[in-house]
């Protein structure tokens, strides 16, 4: 056929069939990554220590538990006022670690952004931050709980560590996306470094910083719940831990879960609202 003689560009597989994939590196890496995911998952299921687990009865029991939790939520060990107060404590922990974290992260991120900082400073901050991020938050909180003693200070400090690490990464990436031309233009007028930061970098990235901070606030709320449960940081998480780990009171677990869910969804809606309302322009850009 005419086509064959013409098509000098056709690549064939070993079996003589025409190839249609480009076979580039990206494609191969994707394929291998997926294969590895599957292999590891199968291995994981083989290695699991199932103990004396009876899956069927466990599932039935879970279903039963979930039914009690979500259909008969009740408070038995503390009242409504206390519940609101404990949620407040958890929110408070989240606010403190987020606000302090954002302030500290702002300065560190300026040091970490490659377009605003010297290379070695930026590298140092990045390595430090990568290390801090790699330690699970609960370990930070537990370590601080021992080192700084019980109380909100330990919880806030522990959560702060991670918030800072997370936000430094997010903030510095936002800073790095600032148009190099703008920075050049201000530099050319004879501006100092702080002028460039306050008049070009911050105004250009402000809404991003805010929306990252709010996202972190959402995360910190659930972290605060976790720290209450796993590290005795107080708040609704501690009550959740007591209800499930000490009293085995499913109704109360259910109630607390509803309370957490409610707050979390409210925060999520709020952040979407904020974004759409005030930051819409930024998204388009």
């Amino acid at each position, binding site marked *: 056929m005419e086509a064959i003689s013409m098509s000098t560009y056709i690549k064939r597989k070993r079996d003589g069939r025409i190839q249609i994939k480009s076979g580039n590196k*990206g494609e191969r*890496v*994707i394929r291998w*990554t997926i294969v590895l*995911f599957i292999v*590891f*998952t199968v291995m*994981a299921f083989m*290695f*699991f*220590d*199932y*103990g004396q*687990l009876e899956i069927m009865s*466990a599932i039935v*029991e*879970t279903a*039963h*538990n*979930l039914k009690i939790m979500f259909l008969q939520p009740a408070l038995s060990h503390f009242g409504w006022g206390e519940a609101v107060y404990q949620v*407040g404590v958890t929110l*408070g*922990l989240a606010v*403190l670690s987020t*606000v302090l974290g954002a302030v500290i992260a702002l300065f560190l991120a300026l040091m970490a952004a490659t377009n605003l900082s010297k290379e070695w400073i930026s590298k140092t901050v990045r390595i430090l931050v*990568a*290390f801090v991020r*790699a*330690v*699970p938050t*609960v*370990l930070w909180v*537990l*370590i*601080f709980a021992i*080192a*700084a003693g019980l*109380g*909100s*200070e330990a919880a*806030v*400090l522990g959560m702060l560590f991670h918030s800072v690490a997370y936000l430094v990464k997010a903030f510095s990436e936002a800073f790095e996306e600032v148009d190099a031309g703008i920075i050049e233009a201000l530099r050319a007028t004879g501006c100092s470094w702080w002028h460039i930061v306050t008049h070009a970098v911050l105004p250009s990235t402000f809404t991003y910083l805010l929306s990252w901070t709010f996202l972190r606030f959402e995360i910190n709320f*659930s972290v605060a*719940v*976790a720290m209450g*449960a*796993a590290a005795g940081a*107080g*708040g609704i*998480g501690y009550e*959740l*831990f007591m209800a*499930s780990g000490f009293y085995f009171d*499913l109704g109360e*677990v259910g109630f607390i*879960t509803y309370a*957490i*869910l409610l707050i*979390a*969804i409210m925060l999520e809606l709020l952040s979407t609202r904020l974004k759409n309302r005030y930051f819409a322009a930024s998204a388009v850009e």
Partner: protein
Amino acid sequence: MNEQIMRKRRWSATIFLIIIIVVTYLSTQITNFNTLHGIAAVPAAMGWIVSNLFITQESLEQLPEILMQLNETIFMSIAATTTAAVVSIFLGLMGSKTTKVNGLLSGLSRLVASASRNIPVVAWALILLLSFGQNSVTGYLALFVGTVGFLTRAFIESIDEASPSSVEALTATGATYFQIVSKAVVPQSLPQMISWILFMIETNIRSATLVGILTGTGIGYIFDLYYKTMDYNTVALITFSIVIAVIIIELMSNSIRKVIL
């Protein structure tokens, strides 16, 4: 009039700042946060860490055991993430504007995602612990549920980002729904999705430590054990192993990301 716009902007900035300060102040009150103590605690804590959290020869003897548990935790995180990803792909396809089948399923998938994401992973761990007991499966399931929520949201975004124009083009050639999904949507969003999965594996290893503390499995369990017996040298070793593992996985994910994105 225009001066007014500027002034109004400055005003709203000031009000915003005041709100933040007030909320922060209220938070210090309700949580009993003592700022001075908080600041003083940092050097004190650092001092404690330096003088207690170091690895000794003796603690190194525990390394094989620690690595075994770390291994279990890593595998658990991977399994939870990949299996959750499979579920999330379907939820994501149903939830995305580009590929949704109908409004009802789309709403349902978003609801499932939102609920499972917003109930914190600790709550899931505690709930599942009651019936599944102290067991890897408990940890696995707790991570699984949270991951489904997160990945579904991420996948919906990735699929929405994949341009609807090629979906339109394939519809016009007479392709079926699943053909369109596999030929137009998946190729465009797969790299993004894999990137999210890698991110979630990292996150889950960290969460697995927390879940392990609560459910008595994997590296979290062994951390808790040594922590509770105040064997801080081994605690340091465990922490260090986790850090190394997380950093290695992060580096690997980053290099994969670099190639595929």
